[in-house]
């Protein structure tokens, strides 16, 4: 047992800190700090700055731009990135489809997509959830039927985050209706400019347009766009969701947001012991979460996520939500002014606190709802 970072890891952390605070455009980092919505161009510019320095996809296989870092270094990379208010590389590209293609994709698909995926030249969307297939993802009904070399896709996906920017969508489709539901699913890569594909916005309670419905009407998809085997999509989906669970524990960003709240409302927090106790307790729980994340990454070698990654998802999203709730309470009456523009006398972070809080209710629902995580813990870990 040993706590200290080695000299090399300490130097690595310095290097990361230096890069993130000096090489990513400041206006992008300010937007993140102030909780403003990022434009597509800003997200792309940030990821490309990272990718140019080899910092967008360090966890990928080395032949595709991975760095072969230790889990600790990946943790430090992520921590410093969040601390500097650098937007994380687009998860759909770097955490989801990239690792899937590296593991399951044909040589042709890898050749075509790995580099543009890392560089966000191709923006990926996720076509998993459907109106009747949420937590019960395997009951999805969007169909793909063979027609010569092509597949013809019909159905509807939903909750497609940032689908309005998407170039391509990795989609789970039913290719065999006659077998157990998990055994008849495949994954197709679909060009979002295909005829018959339509993206419709869903407005959320925060007033924003973050998610979409995606409709497929006789969309033709070339056979070469199949990932892995026909009817082998469920294995790929589980692989992807396992990675997603680790990825969605937003430890560093939540820590950073709590530190910001402390800084912005320092006088009130010091003057009010109840507020101070809330902050101190959240800090402590975040410390426990971060330490658990360090323990889990250290034991996830070899691809299979540690079963305790469910703990990270569950507790990580609860704390993320709790800190956003604190920010609304600290903003007080100013939290009402969500529609005010820059002419407002109230600070931007106070005006944006409530939309952020309302938006983040999603965190305990996506990536396998927290109830699904409890199911995983009780079944897989506790054997109940």
């Amino acid at each position, binding site marked *: 047992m040993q706590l200290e970072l080695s000299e090399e890891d300490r130097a690595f952390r310095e290097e990361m800190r230096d890069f993130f605070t000096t090489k990513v455009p400041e206006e992008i980092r300010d937007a993140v700090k102030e909780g403003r919505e990022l434009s597509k161009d800003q997200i792309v510019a940030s990821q490309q700055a990272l990718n140019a320095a080899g910092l967008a996809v360090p966890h990928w296989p080395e032949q595709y731009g991975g760095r072969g870092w230790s889990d600790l270094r990946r943790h430090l990379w992520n921590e410093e990135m969040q601390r500097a208010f650098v937007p994380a590389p687009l998860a759909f590209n770097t955490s989801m489809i990239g690792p899937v293609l590296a593991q399951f994709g044909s040589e042709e698909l890898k050749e075509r997509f790995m580099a543009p995926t890392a560089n966000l030249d191709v923006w990926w969307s996720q076509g998993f959830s459907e109106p009747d297939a949420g937590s019960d993802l395997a009951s999805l009904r969007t169909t793909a039927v063979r027609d010569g070399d092509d597949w013809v896709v019909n159905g509807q996906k939903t909750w497609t985050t940032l689908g309005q920017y998407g170039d391509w969508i990795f989609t789970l489709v039913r290719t065999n209706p006659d077998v157990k539901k998990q055994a008849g699913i495949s994954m197709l890569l679909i060009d979002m400019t295909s005829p018959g594909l339509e993206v419709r916005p869903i407005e959320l309670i925060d007033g924003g347009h973050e998610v979409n419905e995606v409709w497929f009407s006789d969309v033709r998809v070339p056979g070469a766009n199949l990932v892995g085997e026909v009817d082998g999509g469920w294995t790929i989906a589980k692989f992807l969701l396992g990675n997603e669970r680790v990825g969605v524990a937003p430890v560093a960003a939540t820590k950073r947001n709590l530190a910001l709240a*402390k800084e912005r409302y320092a006088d009130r927090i010091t003057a009010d012991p109840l507020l101070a106790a809330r*902050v101190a307790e959240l800090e402590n729980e975040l410390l426990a*979460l971060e330490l658990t994340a360090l323990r889990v990454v250290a034991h996830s070698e070899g691809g299979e996520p540690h079963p305790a990654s469910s703990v990270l998802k569950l507790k990580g999203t609860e704390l993320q939500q709790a800190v956003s709730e604190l920010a609304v309470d600290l903003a007080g009456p100013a939290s009402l002014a969500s529609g005010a523009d820059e002419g407002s006398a109230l600070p931007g972070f106070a005006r944006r606190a409530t939309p952020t809080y309302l938006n983040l209710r999603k965190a305990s629902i996506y990536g396998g709802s927290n*109830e699904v995580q409890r199911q995983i813990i*009780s079944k897989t870990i506790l054997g109940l």
Partner: protein
Amino acid sequence: MDFTYDDEQVALRDAVRGLVGKTYSDHEHRRQTVNEDPGFDEKQWARMAEMGILGLPFAESDGGVGAGPVEIGIVAQELGRVIAPEPFLACVVLAGGLVSAAGSAEQREEILGAVAEGERVLALAHDEPGRGWVPTASAVTATEQGGAWTLEGVKEPVVQGARADTLVVTAALPDGGTGLFLVDGDAADLQRSSYRTYDGGRAAKVTFSGTSATPLGEVADRESTVATILDVGRITAANEALGSMETALRLTTDYLKSRKQFGVTLNTFQALTFRAADMYVSLELASSMVQWATMVLMSGDAQAASDAARRTSLQVSRAARHVGQEAIQLHGGIGVTAEYAVGNHVARLTALDHLLGDGTHHLGELVGRIGDHEGVDPLH
């Protein structure tokens, strides 16, 4: 950064687990043991001495083993796993820790050597009626006359105060500050009335009435030494609680899988399994904190250790109440009986929570320091 035990530490864990597991995995045996004075098994204490456990934290030159916080944490976890009633925390870590930190070379060798051999039991007489969890003394006062020291006042509760061969006593010094003294268990003008505590242990009211006392080391204000050892004790208690919580959760999941109601086992009911999942979450988070605090203790930085002790005590206090209360509830009535282990784990967890400061106490301390850092960074 590394969260794993090395081979020797694994061997220590297995050896201690074998020793205490053999004695107390049969809960009925523990029950019989704590029903009789002094509330622990003297033969087991001797076997622990033989294994080197009782001299673990002391320097080799004092007759100890010179092991570090990780080894002490391992022992505490294993004792907690079977709620072994032997007073490792009170005698070795707290009272022994103070002798080790403040005693003269002569005192250390004489006392700690005997503790390590299992020949002498120490108790820390520190808590005073009306005040708790502070590193100072006020109700017991020390007076000097012609180079001889006497003590006056009451300490209570003193864990194993009646059984102890030697008491390590905190007392207010004539010129202010908190001094440390040794008092023989059979000293004249010393009154000890012992009683049973709800966790199966023993504690005493100890009354000093002009009782002769020997200064531990030089007479000096030892507040910071006491504070440091209390922090070591907190991290040790957290390790012990961790072992106990692990058992409480395991007993609960075993029970859910075997107990039948309405013709089916209890794990058929999601209302119960989800609560067990939440217990696991609490336990994992507490475990991470305990391991971290134990490593911070290794650094030897008293300020960092104090902070880590408070943070861990807070996390473990919250977790122990959650895990303990739910463990009983998910068992049903059997959980509150003395004959079944789980309720006794909850009793011990409650005692550990209140021995050196509960969660809210430590939260109060953390609140006082809230403005002195931007965030909490576990890696250095």
